[in-house]
């Protein structure tokens, strides 16, 4: 079964162009999130000192919490998601451009046709952004655990993460 993207976007709109920009947005968001690795690297090196040309763990040094290290590095995905609200609005008002095709869309027997064509691509993009952000969050969390020396790790990192992002 093949899915025609054109069936899920406003009739006649250049959806390839829209998809190109969404992909660029997601790529930039991913690249920006790599800043976490630089941040982690800085915090990691701050845990050590050099004694007699040997790197030694500073006594009592702690790695900041994961959420602190992560900071705003996933914000790109949030911005892409916000842009999708604007895209929904643009898709709706596209039906007023150069004609009033909104009249046709509003009198179709299928009441969901207009909604489907305005919302599907932005919604799919938001879901993609959420999934990518979640994947990167877990990936970075794994790196954080793998990199951080056990002695420097503060407890309850997992709980703190969910407390910050989900409020639980």
């Amino acid at each position, binding site marked *: 079964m093949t899915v025609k993207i054109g069936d899920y976007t406003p*009739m*006649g*709109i250049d959806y390839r162009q829209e998809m190109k920009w969404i992909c660029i947005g997601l790529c930039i968001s991913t690249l920006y999130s790599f800043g976490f690795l630089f941040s982690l690297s800085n915090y990691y090196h701050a845990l050590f000192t050099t004694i007699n040309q040997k790197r030694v763990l500073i006594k009592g040094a702690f790695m900041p919490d994961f959420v602190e290290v992560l900071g705003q590095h996933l914000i790109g995905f949030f911005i892409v998601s916000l842009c999708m609200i604007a895209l929904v609005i643009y898709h709706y008002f596209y039906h007023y*451009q*150069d*004609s*009033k*095709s*909104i*009249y*046709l869309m*509003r*009198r*179709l*027997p*299928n*009441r969901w*046709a207009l909604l489907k064509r305005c919302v599907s691509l932005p919604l799919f993009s938001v879901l993609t952004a959420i999934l990518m952000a979640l994947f990167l969050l877990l990936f970075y969390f794994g790196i954080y655990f793998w990199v951080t020396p056990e002695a420097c790790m503060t407890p309850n990192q997992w709980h703190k993460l969910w407390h910050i992002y989900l409020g639980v």
Partner: protein
Amino acid sequence: MLEINDVSKNYKGYRALKQATLTLPRGEIIGLFGENGAGKTTLMKCILGFLNYKGQITLDGHPISRKNIARLSFATCEHSFFPNLTASAHKAFYELHFPTFREKRFNGLMTFFELPTHKAIRHFSVGQKNQFEVILALCQGADYILMDEPFAGNDVFNRADFYKVLLGILEPTETVLLSTHLLEEVEQIIGRAILIRKGEIVGDISIEALEDSGKTLIDIVKETYQYKSDRVVKALSDLTDER
């Protein structure tokens, strides 16, 4: 039968429609006449459910909803097609959404008006766009075809062709409600004239009755609208009067 019962529409205090009551049976070509802002477009938009209104509009006794909306089609001078799509793509879209789409009629009219099928509609001339808009409305397979000044911008030959086509292709079950300012032109094709003024239905006359009375549609319109024929002469003499 399309019944419009006591329909009123207000726009921020302005009454665009005042208790309009009409019955549109099947198989008629009905002209809807009135000056700009009289409420013709508002009435059509109320019928199609684009505007909220007071009163009742029913199609064979049922309110107009998604279940029966396909029985109404609409051609507007504002155009309701997708400018970036070709005629072929429109045909595919209509076939998908309107099971009663008249393919044979569509192909016939496209050929008759010599409209290209693989060219985006935005590249059409204004006249061609109007023709295509009307073709879509005629081919949707609707019982009631609402046309809101569909020939604005078409030349006289073009319009004449269309009137002939309209008379030739319509089936006895199809009703056309045609809003236009071109009274003299459509008088020959309509069976009934509805006059609307300041949101009120001020006249509803069959062309048969009109012929029996020995008057023309334009006479009736002038009477109904209390048109003062000396108005222009008076205005001109006032304007040119030397002080």
